[in-house]
């Protein structure tokens, strides 16, 4: 029952670590609440206690170093959209943040929450996958860095241990002429859960020639997924119509969508192919 659920609101990170260590899995970390409050209302989630990290200043803020941008886990989507370094180095993260829910959700939902919630439909996740972000994870045992692309181990499963907390996301800075591309396909223009979501990072040194490419999808597999076979097919190749068509076929073979209440596997597969082809076509033209 909701009235009997406890909530611990630590004042410091050290206190949060202590509680996590002490409670070992009986406690659920609560950030902006945009997923957990829904689950609680629907009674699909009813833990005995929450660790309310919302007040922790240590998990907020966006800072820059020479090489990277560090985004505190509690950074909201609205804050991401307003951040100059994020706009500059990860415009697709700004785009993704801007299509999550609508204002109310963007003001409460956090980047860390999107990551730890581990939904295959999380809109920022393909972005982090192609940006090859690193996750800074802490516990009373210390702090470690985990590549974002090694974070998920299965449907709604992550490498996060019961006593650990996601502290921050570290993004490498963008080096021009790198191009970024993001596309979300939901059923409506706002307040939509993705049916297919794609992020792409591409570098062409000569026009139309792929120097490197990173492609990731959400909502088409049990977790966010990179498309390594498609990436390999495009690596060092020219973005010719034939090559783009081949990439389209390849990515359709590579995704593993299911049919559910929101869409069909067939649709998702086709759309994954189509939006990738569209992205390659447009990026090839743009260069």
């Amino acid at each position: 029952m909701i009235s009997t659920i406890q909530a611990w609101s630590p004042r410091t990170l050290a206190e949060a670590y202590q509680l996590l260590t002490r409670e070992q899995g009986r406690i659920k970390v609560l950030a902006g609440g945009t997923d957990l409050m829904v689950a609680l209302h629907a009674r699909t989630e009813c833990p005995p206690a929450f660790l309310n990290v919302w007040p922790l200043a240590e998990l907020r803020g966006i800072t820059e170093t020479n090489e990277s941008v560090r985004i505190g886990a509690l950074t909201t989507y609205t804050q991401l959209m307003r951040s100059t370094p994020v706009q500059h180095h990860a415009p697709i993260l700004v785009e993704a943040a801007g299509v999550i829910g609508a204002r109310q959700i963007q003001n409460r939902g956090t980047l860390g929450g999107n990551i730890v919630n581990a939904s295959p439909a999380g809109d920022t996740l393909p972005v982090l996958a192609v940006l090859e972000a690193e996750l800074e994870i802490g516990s009373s045992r210390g702090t470690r860095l985990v590549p974002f692309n090694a974070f998920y181990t299965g449907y709604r499963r992550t490498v996060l241990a019961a006593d650990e907390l996601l502290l921050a996301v570290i993004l490498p800075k963008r080096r021009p002429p790198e191009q970024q591309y993001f596309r979300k396909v939901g059923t409506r223009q706002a307040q939509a859960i993705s049916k297919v979501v794609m992020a792409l990072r591409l570098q062409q040194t000569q026009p139309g020639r792929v120097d490197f490419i990173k492609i990731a999808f959400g909502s088409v597999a049990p977790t966010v997924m990179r498309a390594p076979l498609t990436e390999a097919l495009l690596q060092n190749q020219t973005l010719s119509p034939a090559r783009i068509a081949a990439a389209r076929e390849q990515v359709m073979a590579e995704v593993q969508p299911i049919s559910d209440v929101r869409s069909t596997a067939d649709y998702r597969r086709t759309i994954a192919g189509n939006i990738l082809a569209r992205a390659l076509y447009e990026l090839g033209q743009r260069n």
Partner: protein
Amino acid sequence: MYREDQFPQPLPPGESIVGTNVLRKEGQAKIMGQAQYVDDLTYPGMLYGKTIRSTIARGTITAIRFDPHFDWSAVVVADYRDIPGRNVVLLIEADQPLLVEREVQHHDEPILLLASRDRELLEEAARHIQISYQEKPAVLNMQQAIAAGESGDAGMIIRPPDNTIKKYCIERGDLAAGFRQAEVIVEGTYRTGLQEHVYIEPQGMIAIPGADGSLTLQGSLQCPYYVHKAIKTLFNLPDDKVIVIQTTTGGGFGGKEEYPNMIAGHAALLAWKSGKPVKLVYDRREDIAATTKRHAALVHHKTGVTRDGRLVAADIEVIMDGGAYATLSAVVLSRGAIHALGPYRCPNVRIRARVMATNTPPAGAFRGFGAPQTCFAYEMQMNRIAQTLGLSPLELRRKNLVRTGDLTATGQQLNLSVSAEQVLEAAVQRAQYETERAAAAKSSGSHQRLGIGLSLFYHGAGFTGSGEARLPTRAGVELLPEGKVRVLTSAIEMGQGTETVFCQLAAEALGIAYDDVVFAQPNTAQVPDSGPTVASRTCMIVGKALQDAARQMKSRLERFAADKWKAPQARIHNGELWIDHRSAISFAHLARQYFETEGELRVLHGYTLPPDIKWDDETYRGDAYPVFGWGAEVAKVEVDLDTFEIKVRKCVVAIDCGKALHPLLLEGQIEGGTLQAVGQATIEEVIMENGRVLNDRMTTCLIPTALDAPEMQVVLIENPYPFGPHGAKGIGELPMDGGAAAVAAAVWHATGVLPEEVPLTPEKLYAALAQAQSAAGEMRPGTAGG
């Protein structure tokens, strides 16, 4: 009376109230958050109610087990045995129980009721009840219902003899001769899906037991007297022992026409048993899963035409899915069938219609009431005919649309306020249809295709056939001592503007200020039965009765003044009493005088049907409606051939309303209906799985957001209806009828593929385009480039 130095003068011009955009009567309360919706009310000692529902589509309850380890002392439990009267939710038929006795007919059917002070305890208690069933094979859709009826598979007959709830046949002319005359025959089958109302305020009701054995119901509802009748039957109570009060209602759209009978019955039973006030407010999941939906429909058209595009024969078959109980299906089907030919001339017509019983939650009233389903079909069929003959959709419509003097399928001669041509031309002109269409065609070739489509439609205002004649509609006004006048009616406000427009009508009829008219909260103990707030009838039918009552009050007061002050003539005008052509006293003063001398003044007036309306319920021939509202819409869409998403960019809607009593509210209502139709055409889908609504959440049962809404332009045409107040006709449902067809026609223009089904979700459009292109041997859609 008047001052002696005052000279006689002609009456100054009357202040116009009708036709102006006065402030919404209850607007300030809503805007300040003060309006009281049912969930905002609370009473001392009030319990909360909860409904325990079936988890199968069809079967027999074999056992109900209450966990003996759970403490039930703080929970009130009610089942069908607690009902003092008849276990039926009375509507057209008495087939639907308030609570299941043994046989479950659909998923989420109510079986038990719980009440408690503590809502969390209620949830906990629900988890300690186990209901066992012996499941039976369920009839899950109308095709199965028909198949079982035809094969006589007894195990699959859920409504003897053949699963049909109701059928009609409308015939005019000689169909066979018509087809012989035809040079081309065009056939098509069209489908429309279930649609959920998604009023933003869920269903809710509070029942309060009285010490005198009475029951008071307060809640979100469209038809106070429907609830009144249903509760009387359930509890064996006389008229005066049941009081139904409407609370501010957060949207209805038909969804709060008949379902409130059910939830009121449930709340009342718990109140009856516990002796305490009980509040029952659905959460969104329960609301989507258990309450009524728009009927899914399948319509087949076979049309005979001449080569130059004249309709000569139309054979139409309409099938609807009624769900497990009769509810209002018979009348929904009737309206759908009567409108099924469209606003077109055709001398030889047969319309066969039937609604089938299935083991799904009952379908019911939803804005348009059967007409949007058949409208989508007739408009798509017109497009198919145009395509077959190589005519433009506009030309085909111009050739066939009904004009004054023409006959409808039921043989009704259209004599009054016939505007099919006017609305069509107005929409086409405002939207620059031809120019825009040519411009859109040029954009073809890219993966983002633009398309422009149009639709032409009509909607019978008021009840079908003899409905208005059978119903004792009454409305009235009462004088208040402080000099105001109160409108008395059971026609309710649910956003559409009843309070405002009724106060305008009464003020204008009385010759007093809009601010001096107030609206009585609909309460069956205090207001007369004006019939239900449905069928685009409020303004035109109830408003007319109200206008007559207000006029009567005015002449009574004027007679009183003339007698009292011994004047040859007394007139109430602009809030003042005029005697002998001189302004004498304020209306408030007059009211006080009246109260002092005569006491209360309350005038009720009944609605009388205009003369010469003839309808035969047996043959389904005659004047189906007193008059029709007319509409035409031009929609502009953008179709993304990569993702098959449809973005509706713009809708131009021309509506003949007879008279715009309040243009701003009217436009708002038209725009709202137009967006509901855009939703119906594109994203609004109810997905059924084994008789259960699969997408029972707002995150999966989607309606358009502001970003999905097209820019809308409304063109109002005023072709007066002489028997409506100031010439007004009912148009509440009209904009819902033709919207989906306009959007689908635009998709046809954009893609070259004529849609046969709505909603056109991206998944369905993808499938339709892939099928069309594989049939044509073309490249599959979405291939990059170009």
